């Protein structure tokens, strides 16, 4: 996927005035986060499970080579194949080669962020193979030629009416020419069309939520059942997963699944949680004849052992974006690449470079809600701060910000001058409408006041003046 992360500010300006998007985002704020809260309330062990989930992932990362080799040995023992892909390009080439070996014309795909990361669909299409997205949300945005705006709810930015228009436009060639208005009719029509596409597909491509080293199983979690149709009906099943998806045992999967479903959608358990282990066995009446797992690195091994390593614990539940005030205001597309929200703000600079994505770790209020809901306790604000520091060190920060910071540093090193200057500034602020409790416009702060009012500081002088008045440090 081509990044537009560099144009983040322009993306944001568009998003804030997009009424359909704002309508959809309003639903997001009350939907996922409220359902998560209720699910957590129903399970007293939830916080302890988060700790254990974090520990399992840390243990795995410290022994990543061992668990990947163990997983590989298991898969091979079952007659499956494991392919190692250091880069996105390697992974694309492997998948294309396998599809060609299978003589594939169409491929049924189950929603996978990894395939977005490596832009697999474009690659297959360019070589004459049609990828068909089968997750309903992913199918809708494929028809609209859009990117997902959320990692678990790819079409969350769209309203029902937009979906109805999209189906009307694209389903006519399947003989469906009536514009539908009810959600269940839209779902039923997509089901009918996609059922045929499943039957026709030569290859099924899925991601994986976890790879279990103990058994060589790849695991998938869906609510629709589309991943299971993708790995059962076509004659070849290709799993593509990044290296940090491996975990040790089935018991570890049990713990991670308990926090995953609740953090993602507020469900106790996803409707379909499936363990796939190798190709069809002797006597089986269905299942793929061949089974391949592509292990993708794409920069992850270089994150190990650094201060950014914690991000490799991520299990892609989406809770951080569901609870992020910035994501809630601008949606996923503004982030400009595959992974939006706090997760994207940390991962995107790592995967495509801080030069390209330096805006993203700055798009945070550091309110900390993302960290407070993360099922594997990733310190997302801390990791964003690391990126801000690296950006500053590498002189990538905009000159206005750098000059502003230099100016502040000049005063900060001279306390008497600082106090004087802040007193003057504080007095000046009262000229711009402190009486109303907020400012509608403020010189040098247009970036803030264009879209919202700035709360005014309470009367009574600067912090230092009030501190002194209350007895200061002597109290």
């Amino acid at each position, binding site marked *: 996927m081509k990044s537009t992360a560099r144009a983040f500010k322009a993306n944001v300006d568009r998003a804030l005035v997009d009424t359909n998007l704002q309508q959809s985002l309003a639903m997001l704020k009350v939907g996922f986060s409220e359902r998560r809260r209720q699910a957590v309330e129903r399970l007293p062990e939830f916080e302890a499970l988060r700790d254990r989930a974090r520990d399992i992932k840390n243990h795995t990362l410290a022994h990543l080579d061992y668990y990947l080799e163990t997983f590989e040995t298991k898969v091979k023992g079952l007659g499956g194949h494991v392919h190692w892909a250091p880069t996105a390009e390697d992974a694309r080439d492997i998948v294309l080669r396998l599809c060609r070996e299978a003589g594939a014309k169409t491929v049924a795909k189950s929603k996978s962020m990894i395939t977005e990361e490596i832009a697999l669909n474009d690659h297959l299409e360019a070589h004459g193979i049609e990828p068909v997205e089968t997750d309903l949300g992913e199918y809708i945005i494929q028809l609209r030629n859009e990117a997902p705006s959320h990692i678990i709810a790819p079409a969350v930015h769209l309203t029902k009416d937009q979906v109805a228009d999209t189906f009307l436009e694209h389903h006519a060639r399947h003989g469906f020419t009536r514009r539908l208005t009810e959600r269940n009719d839209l779902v039923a029509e997509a089901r009918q069309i996609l059922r045929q596409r499943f039957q026709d597909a030569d290859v099924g491509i899925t991601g994986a939520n976890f790879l279990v080293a103990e058994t060589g*199983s790849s695991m998938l979690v869906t609510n629709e059942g589309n991943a299971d149709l993708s790995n059962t009906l076509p004659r070849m099943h290709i799993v593509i997963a990044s290296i940090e998806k491996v975990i040790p045992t089935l018991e570890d999967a049990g713990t991670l699944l308990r926090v995953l479903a609740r953090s993602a959608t507020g469900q106790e*358990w996803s409707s379909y949680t499936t363990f796939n282990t190798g190709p069809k066995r002797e006597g*089986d009446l269905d299942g793929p004849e061949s089974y391949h797992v592509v292990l993708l690195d794409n920069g992850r091994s270089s994150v190990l052992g650094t201060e950014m390593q914690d991000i490799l614990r991520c299990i892609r539940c989406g809770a951080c974006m569901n609870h992020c005030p910035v994501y809630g205001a601008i949606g996923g597309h503004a982030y400009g690449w595959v992974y939006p929200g706090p997760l994207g703000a940390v991962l995107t600079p790592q995967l495509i470079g801080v030069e390209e994505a330096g805006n993203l770790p700055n798009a945070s209020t550091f309110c900390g809600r993302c960290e407070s809901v993360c099922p594997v306790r990733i310190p997302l604000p801390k990791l964003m701060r690391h990126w801000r520091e690296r950006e500053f060190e590498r002189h990538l920060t905009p000159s206005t910000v750098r000059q502003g910071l230099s100016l502040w540093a000049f005063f900060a090193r001279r306390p008497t001058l600082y106090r004087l200057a802040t007193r003057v500034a504080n007095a000046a602020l009262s000229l711009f409408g402190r009486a109303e409790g907020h400012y509608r416009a403020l010189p040098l702060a247009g970036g803030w006041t264009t879209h919202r009012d700035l709360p005014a500081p309470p009367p009574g002088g600067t912090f230092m003046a009030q501190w002194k008045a209350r007895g200061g440090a002597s109290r």
Partner: protein
Amino acid sequence: MSAREQMLGAIRRSLRRGELPAVSRAVVDARLREHPVNIVPRRTEGSDADRVAQFEHWAAFHHASVARVDVAGVPGAVADYLKTNNLPARVAMAPDPDLDRYDWPSAPMLEIRRGKPVDADPVAVTGAFAGIAETGTLVFASGPDHPTSLNLLPETHVVVLREADVVGPIEDVFVRLRARYGEGRMPRTVNTVTGPSRTGDIEQQLELGAHGPRRMHILLVRD
């Protein structure tokens, strides 16, 4: 250098070590072999009857319907369910010998075909490897006696689950899988299914029957 060596080498360089030293290897080998149980929610504790009641609660919570029957009542309960819901009595049934213990001819209106389903089959009837009380989840293990497509293609899935196969948490399913298939072994597919298929992809509103079954009916059988 192969891609494999390149990736493993990069991981080891980042971890600032070579291959795992023998001592550490023995520790992780043991962890894999012993697969220690992590934290199991206390809600799964209780008597056999509590467990079955809990399964029923959570299955209904996830929009499955549940009926309790005895062995003799199973065929009639399937026929009644289909009739009540205005569904055709044409059934694709798993070729699972465990289902032979029910007297299907006692419900002569059922038209039964054993084997994997075709797309047009409206109803699937299968057994289940286990039921998980913690979440009301059914566990289906693939094999010659249970094609996976039966769990997915028909719009209605009727599941015959013996009360004795209702376990507390998923960890108890792992114990049973290892007992049946061997340590570290699994059938081609283990589906854990909780209620009918669903989607929230249009405006985050729940719709049932996205790709898999629209209806799931569970017959809990007293032995």
